[in-house]
């Protein structure tokens, strides 16, 4: 296309601006003939914008006050404690955002839940100890790991940064572990990384970030600045544990040892392992597709034969599964309404079919 001749753009019909005089309208509206709005005096514009500001501020204030009213009053005491034979979970239905429980016996309707437990984003409990990952708004918002006793009263509170993600308690209730996404509140970071902590409740010793653990990968000591751990699961001896490590775009299952503070990579593509009560099998999420759409499936790994098999759940599960007993695992899937999730259960051997266990719940924990 040939270049148009200079000044051919006059077809817009705008009067050529005189060279010297600024034509911005002043108080007298001298320039008013050109565009009606420009004709408005400065004072009129200021008044108009100020009026609009008042209207907008009113809308914002009314909405905010309404939202603040919606917020439920915060209760600190739990309506119940940890009792054997109950399935505990975070409710996303009645008593939203707080822990609820159901008798484990089959045939109990989900509506029979007892609500009014502690307010948590993630929850787990075992052996008379509860672990509640919670978040308090503020500047900046702060997350906490709250250690709860058998009556779900607060024993210890640890300030954290990031978004709560995984929470686990060893069968004895001694070893606690949680994972946070180290982003979200930050102005700076754009990608997600994780920070996993381990707390020994007997000694009170806290490992804030386990990434310094001595790692062996492919038979050799492995160093890399980008290692990230998540999804810890402790064995019955409160010493051995399983977790996921990611480095250079790959994830590995590691077997860790608390006493020697060492970890050894066992196999690739295993995330969020969960050890069965009899300590013989791991259920984990395996990445079956790259990208962000439906990337994971639940698998079970037999630790004696190191054979893995898919579970009957065909949907993508982004959760650390929890064992209800030695044959069944439970996990959360997004619910139909926003911000809700449902707890599903599926046999841990690949047979059967997934069944809806608790509508409107997440973070299942069977207390035995």
């Amino acid at each position, binding site marked *: 296309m040939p*270049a*148009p001749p*200079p*000044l051919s*753009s006059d077809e*817009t019909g*705008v009067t*050529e*601006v005189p*060279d*010297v*005089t*600024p*034509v*911005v309208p*002043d108080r007298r509206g001298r*320039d008013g003939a050109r*565009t009606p709005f420009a004709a408005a005096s*400065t004072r009129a*514009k*200021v008044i*108009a914008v100020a009026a609009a500001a008042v209207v*907008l501020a009113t809308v914002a204030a009314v*909405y*905010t006050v309404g*939202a*603040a009213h919606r*917020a439920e009053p*915060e209760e600190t005491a739990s309506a119940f404690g940890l009792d054997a034979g109950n399935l505990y979970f975070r409710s996303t239905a009645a008593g939203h955002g707080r822990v609820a429980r159901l008798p484990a016996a089959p045939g109990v309707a989900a509506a029979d839940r007892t609500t009014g437990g502690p307010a948590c984003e993630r929850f787990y409990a075992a052996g008379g100890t509860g672990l509640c990952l919670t*978040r308090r*708004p*503020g*500047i900046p*918002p*702060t997350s906490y790991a709250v250690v709860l006793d058998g009556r779900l009263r607060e024993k210890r509170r640890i*300030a*954290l*940064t990031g*978004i*709560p993600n995984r929470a686990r308690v060893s069968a004895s209730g001694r070893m606690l572990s949680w994972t946070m*996404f180290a*982003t979200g*509140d930050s*102005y*700076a*970071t*754009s*990608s*997600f990384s994780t920070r996993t902590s381990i707390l020994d409740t007997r000694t009170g010793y806290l490992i804030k970030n386990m990434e310094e653990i001595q790692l062996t990968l492919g038979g050799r000591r492995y160093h*890399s*600045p*980008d290692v990230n751990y998540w999804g810890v699961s402790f064995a019955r001896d409160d010493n051995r544990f399983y977790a996921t490590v990611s480095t250079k775009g790959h994830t590995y299952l590691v077997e860790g040892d608390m006493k020697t503070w060492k970890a050894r990579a066992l196999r690739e593509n295993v995330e969020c392992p969960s050890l069965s009560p009899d300590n013989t099998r791991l259920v984990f999420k395996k990445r079956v597709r790259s*990208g*962000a759409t439906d990337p994971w499936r639940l698998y079970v790994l037999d630790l004696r034969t190191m054979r893995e098999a898919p579970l009957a759940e065909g949907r993508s599960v*982004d959760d650390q599964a929890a064992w209800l007993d030695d044959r069944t695992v439970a996990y959360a899937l997004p619910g139909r*309404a*926003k*911000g*809700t999730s449902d707890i599903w259960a599926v046999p841990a051997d690949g047979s059967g079919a997934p069944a809806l266990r608790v509508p409107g719940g*997440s973070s299942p924990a069977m207390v035995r």
Partner: protein
Amino acid sequence: MYLATTGAAEATRKVSRGRVAGPVLALGSVSLVTDISSEMVTAVLPLYFVLHLGLSPLQFGFLDGLYNGATALVRLVGGHAADRGNRHKLVAGTGYALSALSRLGLLLAGGGTLGIGAALAADRIGKGVRTAPRDAIISLSSPPDALGRAFGVHRAMDTTGALLGPLAAFALLWATADAYDAVFVVSFCVGLLGVLMLVAFVPGREALPTRRYAPTPAPAVPDAAPTAPESGSTAPEPGPTIPEPGPARPKILDPFRDPAFRRILGAAALLGAATIGDAFVYLLLQRQLDFAVRWFPLLPLGAAAVYLSLAVPAGRLGDRVGRRVPFLCGHAALLGAYLLLLTTGAGALLLVGVLLLIGVFYAATDGVLMALAGPVLPAAGRASGMALLQTGQALARLLAAAGFGAAWTLWGVRPALITAVLALAAALACSAVLLRRLERRV
């Protein structure tokens, strides 16, 4: 160029001394308000995604990264559209309005990933579209010898908004016990106010000198805003500028014909390709300091505070001694920050030093680059030229951040950082030569 001051430019300077043009203050206020609005949302979005909607962080990262690449192209389109038909205010206003409306989109999308993706895309497009026309209006409304100060004032106001936004959002979440919808509604109201302010107070095409072309420079429009109503309405004498063959209908790549612009773009891209990105700087700080982790999210506020307090002095310095000086010094400050990260283990020194140097870096380079390029670009093609410059710099930085991330993973922190230091030093030396020629040419 603007450095070769003639008597006429001297007169301009006298007229403009002590005052910033009304449109600059108007746009500064619009940016302040808009940044409060947009940073409110940016600060809470990851929390909203993961905790409130229960989406996987993976999905969030995917949606968030999806549009970053596209922004660069949108920016070019915005600049070009503004120049064609001289519609700076219209294009910028459309961008602001689109971003404001995207908050409603977030509200209405509920939990739908598709809707949220569309809202995020609208916000990014709005942001990309408005930047170049806005900077063009600033430069066209200010006398060429006070451009540095004009951009300094604008950036200081802009950064103030960026600083207040997250604080406002966290305060809202605190007051409403995590009602994210309240954040979106308030953000929308604030954003809409910004659009109204733009409509009312930013001059339209009849006030911008783009219909004439060089050698007439951008005249000052001192009484365009209510803040400076009683100033003498005599336009400054034409200042010196480079002669332009300037066709009235610029093409998108026209600025490339000008060697001075090519050199500025080259320097900006070179230096951009040697910056490792803020995210990594804060990550490195985080690794070397082990103080109360929960205050970490507030660290960038320190750098922003330095930025906003030094933006105007840096711009004025540029007006006085030549804008390449603060531009190069700013990158030298960045080099200093990298060296500190490399050499110091002392917590307090490292923290204060790095935040200070990063703040100086932004204050001395961000607005100053636009002030450096403004006089080189013909008025009728200024928005396109600025868009090209910003896009070139942004793409170079994107590449650099990716490269640094790869180097970190492959070689470890120290070798990667040493490489970055060497690269930045080399880029700095090359840019000093490139920009010196530029100023000698006149």
